[in-house]
């Protein structure tokens, strides 16, 4: 179990403020947030690698706040894999063993199990220089697990990989979590990973934890502007609630449910907003006339900014649809969305 109380850290430009977090023994926990939110610094603080300004860190009921990193019993696996370039694969994997009072037979068995499980047996005498991205990550994982850590922390292990390797490594993480019962704490900015791997998640923003909960909770019920934006709700508006309606910038939005608040926010995912050239007949309870402000290329899709009343809506449409609907800047269009697609907080 990891228990962090009121942790504050100040390291150059990075700062953590009053972090409180509890991670259960043997769970798979994901830490999410944009670049610079302090995710890696938090991992390093738990590992004892950065000086703590105030607060405390308990690992399995032991206060490790003031202990040097080698006494934390936490393995860390960085995004850039950080293999020792002067050691070959097997030397890398065995690096930490001498510091742990392990029976020689026991540790040999453990290493050879890991080598088999991660499919590294043909690479043992290669230098990291000669390994592919996926191999590097697997060796790094084996090295971290060889010392049988209580906690394994992974700093965006998948983001540097090709999609194919990513799938493979994800499966490995799953099976390792199942077989070893190690507590896994993973940093990611990829929601897909969180959904397919983790049980609980926390969202960080500028050195603070803004939301903690199950992965589904975090995705479906954002607690605030930042969390909503982070999970992809690009349309977030401050509103006055009136019965089942919300009023904002000259528009009246039907929520289909009564809210017991005077003022608050509503949030809508851009993919839930449908664009059409004229009014369409549908079950969607909200429909507004608007004007296209800009068309932004997002790779496979376009984000269309539409001004309706005094409200700027963001919608997504497929590249092909841009031609069909003849959407250009300054075009008049109609936007529609379901009441059920509106989140409020």
């Amino acid at each position, binding site marked *: 179990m990891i228990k962090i109380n009121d942790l504050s850290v100040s390291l150059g430009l990075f700062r953590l403020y009053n972090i409180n977090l509890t991670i259960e023994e043997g769970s798979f926990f994901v830490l999410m947030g944009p670049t610079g939110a302090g995710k890696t610094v938090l991992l390093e603080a738990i590992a004892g690698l950065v000086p703590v300004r105030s607060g405390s860190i308990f690992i399995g009921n032991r206060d490790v706040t003031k202990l040097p990193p080698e006494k934390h019993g*936490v*393995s860390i696996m*960085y995004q850039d894999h950080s293999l*020792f370039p002067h050691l070959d694969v097997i030397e890398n994997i065995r690096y930490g063993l001498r*510091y742990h009072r392990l029976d020689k037979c026991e540790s040999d068995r453990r290493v050879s199990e890991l080598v088999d499980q991660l499919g590294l047996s043909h690479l043992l005498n290669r230098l990291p220089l000669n390994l592919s991205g996926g191999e590097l990550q697997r060796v790094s994982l084996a090295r971290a697990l060889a010392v049988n850590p209580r906690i394994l922390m992974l700093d965006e292990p998948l983001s540097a990989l090709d999609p194919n390797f990513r799938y493979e490594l994800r499966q490995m993480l799953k099976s390792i979590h199942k077989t070893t019962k190690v507590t896994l704490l993973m940093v990611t900015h990829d929601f897909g990973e969180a959904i397919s791997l983790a049980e609980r998640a926390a969202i960080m923003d500028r050195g603070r934890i803004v939301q903690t909960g199950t992965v589904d909770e975090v995705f479906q019920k954002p607690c605030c502007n930042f969390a909503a934006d982070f999970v992809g709700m690009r349309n977030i508006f401050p509103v006055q609630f009136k019965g089942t309606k919300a009023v904002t910038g000259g528009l009246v939005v039907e929520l289909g449910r009564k809210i017991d608040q005077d003022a608050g926010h509503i949030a809508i995912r851009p993919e839930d907003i449908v664009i059409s050239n004229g009014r369409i007949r549908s079950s969607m309870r909200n429909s507004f006339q608007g004007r296209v402000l800009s068309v932004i290329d997002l790779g496979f899709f376009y984000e269309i900014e539409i001004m309706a009343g005094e409200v700027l809506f963001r919608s997504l449409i497929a590249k092909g649809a841009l031609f069909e609907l003849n959407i250009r800047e300054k075009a008049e269009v109609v936007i529609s969305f379901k009441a059920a697609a509106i989140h409020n907080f």
Partner: protein
Amino acid sequence: MKKNKSLFFYLFLSSGILILAFIVLPLLQMIISPSYEMMKFTIMDRDVLRSMWLSIYTALSASLIAFIFGTPLAYLLARSDFRGKRLVESIIDLPIVIPHPVVGIAILSIVGKNHWFGQVLADLGIRIMGTPAGIITVLTFVGLPFYINTVKDGFQDISPRLENVSRSLGASMAGTFFRVTFPLAKRSMLTGSLMCTARAISEFGAVVVVAYHPMIAPVMLYERFESYGLKYSQPISVWLILICLSLFLVLRIVTLDKGVKA
């Protein structure tokens, strides 16, 4: 660059060639001046040989001292940030800008019998003035900045994450340093040592103040020049330059290799 160069380009080119000629021609002339017999005769001279050997071994000793005491400082400067770090870096650069005879005089200021430190040394039986120990002290003084600055850069090139991983795998700070940091910084230490040796072996002004005798090669060279003139000093110069150039060549090869391995 376009193929059709302007006048301006040729102006630049010629001034570049002028500079290169200015450096190469005197050295070349000096190297071709002595006859083969002169060269052979000089290297058979026991005094010359002794001074060459003294030069080499004092320079290497200075390098060794820089390695032992300079490495920790270089590591601290590469890894930590503290108030006054710039001041410390400035202090390390000081020996580069101080006029060479002043270095010798400064060293003598502290090792004289009327200074407590000089007394301590005298009690320990260590003499600085006119001894190889003195020469090594002076050469260490002028060579240190070259070693420390090079190795500091080398340490900075090693990702602190490697050390973090090592710590989290259970290694102490010392264990991490000797198993990870040190092996990875080996090349920069070699480069730094070569630069320190090169700087030390070329020193004259600081040494001549502290120890005219025993004569290191540059002092011997100067004496020959003073006593017998240009012609008799050239062969020693050529031999001395050959030693320096081989050092320099090794240095270039070591730094060239870097790109391949890193």
